[in-house]
């Protein structure tokens, strides 16, 4: 009830005070809005409105700042911190991070190894940067792949009744498959061909990304299908049908924008799952080769000696969880910003 009366009250006042409240307060725009060209400039100002609303969400802004920081850290970091992450400095193994000195004057610390070294003398800071590149790339690409697959299958199943049974049973089938044995078989079958085609690292990257992508789209597909089924019965879809809008534009214009929220949520969850699945695969020896660091692998390699060297678990763990959290908040803020009902407030 309040939802209905509230916009009613806001829409009531005459246009003159309402226009500057909505857009930027410059005179030219008011004149234009009142004149003839008002609808033409909607696309640019729409994105400005989205940005204004996005900035309202503190968590999303902090998340975005952190994501930019961590992305710069892994991309530009190795140019500044020019230490080879694979370099074995066996004399300086098990060096503690520099801050350990604050409470333990006896600790083995070096200024040239700010985050210490591992049991083979590899620099942890350099490893975090190199590992972050791989983890982020795997996470984003696998998430996007799963998202596109899941949305496509969900939309097709929800919109076209004839495909529904077939696609949803296929989704059930994929959900019922045990993930790890499937990945194992995929690795065994395709590893050598892909290595030959793309080189050892790129080959394994393509394999891991595809494997994670095609085994994690099912939940997105189910959520999207459910929402499409509900939206399909809404009157604005009927109205579009009475106009004669063909199916493909019906989907892109009316259905997809309205299932954006659940897609966004499963995207942020998907990123986390992809990074963690990659770590699990590397841990089982199915992922990247052992001298090729990723956040997940640094984490798993250090678990055995976690009590003596907690920093080797904390730093990669923090990287993973903060990245996921940042993306989660950005998704949250973006979802609010893209919803005109919330943006209007």
């Amino acid at each position, binding site marked *: 009830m309040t939802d209905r009366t509230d916009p009613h009250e806001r829409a009531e006042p005459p246009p003159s005070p309402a226009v500057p409240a909505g857009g930027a307060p410059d005179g030219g725009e008011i004149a234009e809005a009142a004149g003839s060209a008002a609808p033409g400039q909607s696309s640019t100002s729409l994105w400005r409105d989205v940005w204004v609303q996005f900035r309202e969400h503190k968590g999303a802004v902090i998340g975005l700042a952190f994501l930019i920081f961590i992305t710069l850290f892994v991309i530009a970091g190795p140019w500044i911190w020019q230490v080879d992450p694979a370099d074995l400095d066996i004399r300086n193994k098990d060096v503690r991070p520099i801050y350990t000195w604050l409470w333990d004057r006896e600790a083995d610390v070096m200024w040239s190894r700010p985050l210490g070294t591992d049991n083979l003398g590899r620099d942890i800071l350099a490893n975090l940067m190199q590992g972050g590149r791989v983890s982020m790339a795997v996470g984003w690409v696998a998430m996007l792949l799963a998202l596109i697959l899941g949305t496509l299958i969900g939309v097709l199943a929800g919109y076209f009744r004839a495909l529904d049974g077939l696609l949803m049973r296929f989704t059930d089938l994929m959900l019922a498959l045990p993930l790890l044995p499937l990945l194992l078989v995929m690795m065994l079958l395709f590893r050598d061909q892909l290595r030959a085609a793309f080189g050892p690292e790129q080959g394994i990257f393509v394999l891991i990304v595809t494997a994670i992508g095609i085994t994690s789209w099912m939940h997105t597909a189910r959520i999207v299908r459910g929402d499409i089924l509900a939206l399909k019965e809404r*009157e604005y879809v*009927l109205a579009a049908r009475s106009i*004669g809008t063909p199916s493909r534009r019906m989907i892109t214009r009316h259905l997809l924008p309205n299932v954006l929220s659940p897609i966004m949520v499963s995207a942020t969850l998907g990123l986390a799952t992809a990074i963690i699945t990659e770590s699990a695969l590397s841990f089982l020896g199915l992922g990247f080769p052992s001298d090729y660091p990723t956040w997940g692998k640094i984490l798993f390699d250090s678990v055995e000696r976690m009590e003596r060297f907690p920093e080797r678990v904390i730093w990669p763990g923090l990287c993973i969880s903060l990245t996921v959290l940042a993306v989660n908040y950005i998704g949250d803020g973006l979802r609010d910003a893209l919803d005109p009902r919330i943006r209007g407030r």
Partner: protein
Amino acid sequence: MLDAAAPAPATPAADGAPPLLDVRGLKMHFPIHSGLLRRQVGAVKAVDGVDFTIRPGETLGLVGESGCGKSTCGRAILRLYDITEGSIRIDGVEIGHLSQHALRKHRPTMQMVFQDPQASLNPRMNVSQIIREPLDEHTKLSSAEKDEKVLELMDAVGLNRAFARRFPHAFSGGQRQRIGIARALALNPKFIVCDEPIAALDVSIQAQVVNLLEDLQEQFGLTYLFISHDLSMVRHIATRVAVMYLGRIVELAPREALYAEPLHPYTQALLSAVPEPDPALARKVERVILKGDVPSPANPPKGCNFCTRCPKVMDICHEIDPMPRHLPGGRQVACHLYEDTKTTTDPTAAHKPGHSSAQQGVSP
């Protein structure tokens, strides 16, 4: 029955212009699937054999209680559903069984205004985008021409031009309905189905929207199928009124005749349910109160659909389904009471068998 068929084609011809919309034997059955194999075990007969015509420029009011198939009928005519049976000719084109693809180029002729103005507008599109959609789909105008057309339409339905970039949630119910009407008008349609356009609005706004619809009808020469359960509003806007019960049209008559002298027992009951503002008069008028519920459209009674609740039910009503009879004055009624007295509209003659059967109905 044979002689009843003769006046049918004669009625529209007598009035000169050929009908804009001609619906014959329209049936819309929704299958019911059940059991392990999802076999079809029956059908909800939402619309079960409806015939009517609408002449250019007229407004046909379609009234009836909830669930009688009014909205389904309106949607089926626009082929938002794939109809089960029947023929729909609009502007001389048979669209009853065209594929949705072939239908697309006939869509501009017919448009629809929906019941719930909130649900009929996509919340993610602004007013300008909503009104533009039909133009994007069916015209090859340049972007600037479309913008100009959108603003003209907003003027026509009484929306401020400055609101073009706002989203539907920022409007009141009446304004939203105006947006919906502007969208329906965008392609210069000849025929508009108004599916309870005022049911979700405040009473004060209802009059505004109905007056707008009337003004637009005059301005653009529109033809309406006005679906409503508000009998007084239909009396205001319609030129002819069709009364629907359980998927059938039981009575179709010019407005004045129908309200002055309803023939079908269901119409009589429906009109007597309209509250009378004068208490003295209200006490005097004897209301017809129907007993029981509407039967399920999945399992309609044998014989006349109304026989389970009719106060004037006769034996024949349980056996034979009454066919629509054409009576003088362009009236049409489907009731056994008028089988043998088709030439007379004298109420005493018509009601005589009714009273006797009602008394019979009480005793057993």
